[in-house]
């Protein structure tokens, strides 16, 4: 009798524990989610209340400390409608300042949520009310812009339904929030990177790898990298050695599962809310049709895999016809780990999880040196002197006059190329279709058809050995001048990546048009991933007066100085 009772109690406790754990996820992120139909409200309406606080977070059998919104990781789904007036009150129950930035949302600058730029921040115990008219639709997200709170779980999805008919037809939708979780405090992660930049890298080249051939790199190539003091395996600064990659707050073991019925068109709204991880996303056995990027509709393009940089969003349509499960794979670009989730007709089903693929090797192109192009074009150059990277990797004459070439600049790309048509890092040789930036074509014609009246070049600079990052050789803490735009001027901004790392660059308050060969239909983005050693341009109509943040969305790069303020003036008529 006693035993039975204990067993029963255990069963109840276990059940309650499961239910309790699930309660820590908002409804849409609970495993077994039937999806978020437009009618199913999570947090919506005229008044939305959010509360920022501390929460325990459980993954892989361990419990850590998270900073959450309304007690969940990810934060609740906020669902707004284009044309409505949004009113979101945010209460801070932390003992430090907090904030919420509405990522990708067009709004008055004082509602953008960046402490020190848009507003003073939300002090402990205070409530700040964000109010703005909703002028757009699509998939977005929101997160803290205070310290490194975002890396501790303070992020969530934000979906805006269009007023008119959605050009994207679907029967069911799921929100897929990708993130990276560490039990280390993000400040400790950054401290370790400053102490030893390769601290988290467990995939470096080795003698064993040379002898076995597994490193896929010859001794002479390795010598060249070593001479330059550059690590060809420096793909991600923070890796699976400390990160657990999450899908909707679930680790690979927890296997978040979203349901579908065979024959349905399912829309996946995929958001990369990671602190430091770019992901390769694929669903083995299912092609994906990309219909939206960064909240803006694009002409449908079918792919088998795409890379999603930190802070980007992609909406894809899938059409599973079979009564079987599919695995959603979000593999870290350095292949040190993966997030994994399942799409299935019923709970409890799962599909094969593919193994991690080989870590990519960086190449000379990632250093902004195209050896092949040089051979063809360098008629007068002394080829002997270019042996083993003797080429000047830090030629000041290649820097714009306003760039500070100091200790924070390890290299200056000698021939940074436009790499928008290239497959992203590590996916060059995949046998299937991979999305490239030139595949993105805006569904609607671009509104501003004026030619840019001026150009502006900004270099993304860094020193991996000192873990310093900045724009034009300066960290934000060096009291840099803001980047100034005249209101409504149209500028072609060129970003040149002088480093061998990817940098997802985000501009607040605006969409910019990626100059990718589709004039008139250039895709609108709020975040663009600049390839290592690459360059790209975007056209910006600076139509949002005020001050805005402009930064790399890799949290540790931003926190190390890759950040600046964009000012759009005059402000006439802004304050009433």
């Amino acid at each position, binding site marked *: 009798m006693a035993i039975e009772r204990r067993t029963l109690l255990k069963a109840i406790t276990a059940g309650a524990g499961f239910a309790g754990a699930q309660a820590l996820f908002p409804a849409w992120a609970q495993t077994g989610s039937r999806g978020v139909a437009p009618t199913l409200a999570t947090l919506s309406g005229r008044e939305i209340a959010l509360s920022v606080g501390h929460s325990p977070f459980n993954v892989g059998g361990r419990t850590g400390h998270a900073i959450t919104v309304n007690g969940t990781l990810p934060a609740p789904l906020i669902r707004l409608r284009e044309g409505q007036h949004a009113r979101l009150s945010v209460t801070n129950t932390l003992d430090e300042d907090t904030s919420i930035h509405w990522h990708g949302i067009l709004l008055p600058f004082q509602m953008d949520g960046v402490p020190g730029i848009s507003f003073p921040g939300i002090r402990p115990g205070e409530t700040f009310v964000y109010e703005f008219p909703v002028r757009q639709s699509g998939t977005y997200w929101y997160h803290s812009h205070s310290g490194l709170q975002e890396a501790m779980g303070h992020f969530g999805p934000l979906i805006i339904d269009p007023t008119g008919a959605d050009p994207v037809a679907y029967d069911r939708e799921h929100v897929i929030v990708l993130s990276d979780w560490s039990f280390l405090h993000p400040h400790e992660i950054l401290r370790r990177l400053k102490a030893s930049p390769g601290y988290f890298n467990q995939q470096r080249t080795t003698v064993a790898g040379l002898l076995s051939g597994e490193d896929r790199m010859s001794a002479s190539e390795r010598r060249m990298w070593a001479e*330059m003091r550059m690590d060809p395996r420096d793909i991600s600064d923070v890796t699976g050695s400390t990160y657990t990659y999450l899908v909707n707050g679930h680790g690979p073991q927890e296997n978040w599962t979203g349901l579908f019925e065979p024959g349905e068109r399912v829309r996946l709204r995929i958001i990369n809310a990671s602190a430091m991880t770019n992901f390769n996303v694929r669903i083995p056995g299912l092609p994906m049709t990309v219909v939206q990027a960064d909240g803006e509709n694009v002409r449908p393009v079918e792919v088998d895999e795409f890379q999603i940089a930190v802070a980007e969003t992609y909406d894809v349509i899938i059409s599973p016809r079979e009564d079987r499960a599919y695995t959603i794979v979000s593999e870290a670009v350095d292949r040190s780990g993966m997030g994994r989730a399942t799409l299935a007709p019923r709970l409890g089903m799962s599909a094969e999880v593919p193994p991690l693929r080989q870590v990519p090797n960086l190449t000379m192109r990632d250093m902004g040196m195209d050896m092949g192009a040089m051979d063809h074009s360098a008629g007068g150059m002394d080829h002997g002197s270019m042996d083993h990277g003797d080429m000047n990797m830090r030629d000041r004459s290649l820097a714009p006059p306003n760039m500070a070439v100091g200790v924070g600049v390890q290299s200056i790309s000698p021939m940074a190329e436009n790499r928008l048509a290239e497959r992203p890092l590590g996916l060059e040789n995949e046998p299937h279709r991979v999305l490239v930036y030139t595949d993105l074509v805006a569904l609607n014609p671009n509104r501003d058809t004026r030619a840019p009246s001026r150009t502006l070049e900004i270099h993304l600079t860094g020193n991996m050995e000192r873990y310093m990052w900045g724009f034009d050789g300066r960290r934000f803490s060096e009291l840099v001048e803001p980047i100034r735009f005249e209101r409504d001027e149209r500028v072609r901004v060129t970003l040149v990546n002088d480093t061998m790392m990817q940098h997802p660059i985000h501009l607040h308050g605006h969409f910019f048009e990626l100059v990718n060969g589709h004039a008139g239909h250039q895709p609108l983005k709020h975040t663009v991933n600049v390839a290592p050693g690459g360059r790209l341009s975007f056209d910006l109509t600076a139509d949002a007066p005020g001050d805005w943040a402009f930064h790399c969305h890799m949290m540790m790069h931003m926190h190390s100085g890759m950040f600046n303020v964009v000012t759009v003036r005059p402000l006439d008529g802004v304050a009433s």
Partner: protein
Amino acid sequence: MRMIAAFVAPLVLVAAMPAAAQDHAQHETQTPAPDPHAGHETTPPPQSTSAIGSDTQANAADLYFDAAAMARARQQLIAENGGMRTYAVIVERLEAGFDDDSETYAWHAQGWYGGDIHRFWWKSEGEGAFENELDDAELQLLYSRAVTPYFDLQAGVRQSYLESKDRTELVLGVQGLAPYWFEVGAAAFVSTEGDVTARAEAEYDLRLTQRLILQPSAELNFAAQDIPDLDIGAGLTDAEVGLRLRYEFSRRFAPYVGVEWTSALGETRDLRDALGEDTQSTRAVVGLRALF
């Protein structure tokens, strides 16, 4: 007791640091270095710039929020994005050595606290035989400034605790990363007696696997003049060459085994030979490397 201070002092300093380093308020603000191209001016738009010029509102948010609150938030934003102060502790060697005659111990550690450019740097090393008192120990307290992408210039003092006589010296050195990933350092020392000595060091991590690492290292010492107190003759005085194989269970716990050869050289060797001292030794070593 004084000798122990050489090792204990930096640890005390370091123990005090983590708390401070985690504190947001401790962020460093860098004064911009004088730069002929300073100003970050962008190409002026071909159109009239009067609109920008006439707009005197430097910080747009001051229109809506208390200017003092904005100024506070702005300061924090500036400090947080690039101005972080932090620390590191690198215990390169904490080891026991064995040869036919003696069992010895030695340590070699350094660490720093500060921002990206300016750092307080300390270094300590020492050795002794288990059955005797500490042979010698030293502690360097340095200001370290990043001067090139890979090298720091360091200046400060070195206090040595020696069998014969303690010494205080000024230090001027460089430390950094040379091509091919060689960790190198060189320093000159000027003692209160006016003696000038110098030291050069290099080490290299050869990764056999991700965790098994073979580290050759070398250290050379020089003297510009005879220093009779220390039985040192002018010129190259001594060398230390080591080879250590460590296994990194983690960056914080990497035990190793190795061998170390030390020898007095040149006139110093002659001098010590004449005194009947050992001038050369080869020891097997076992120890621990740790990075914090």
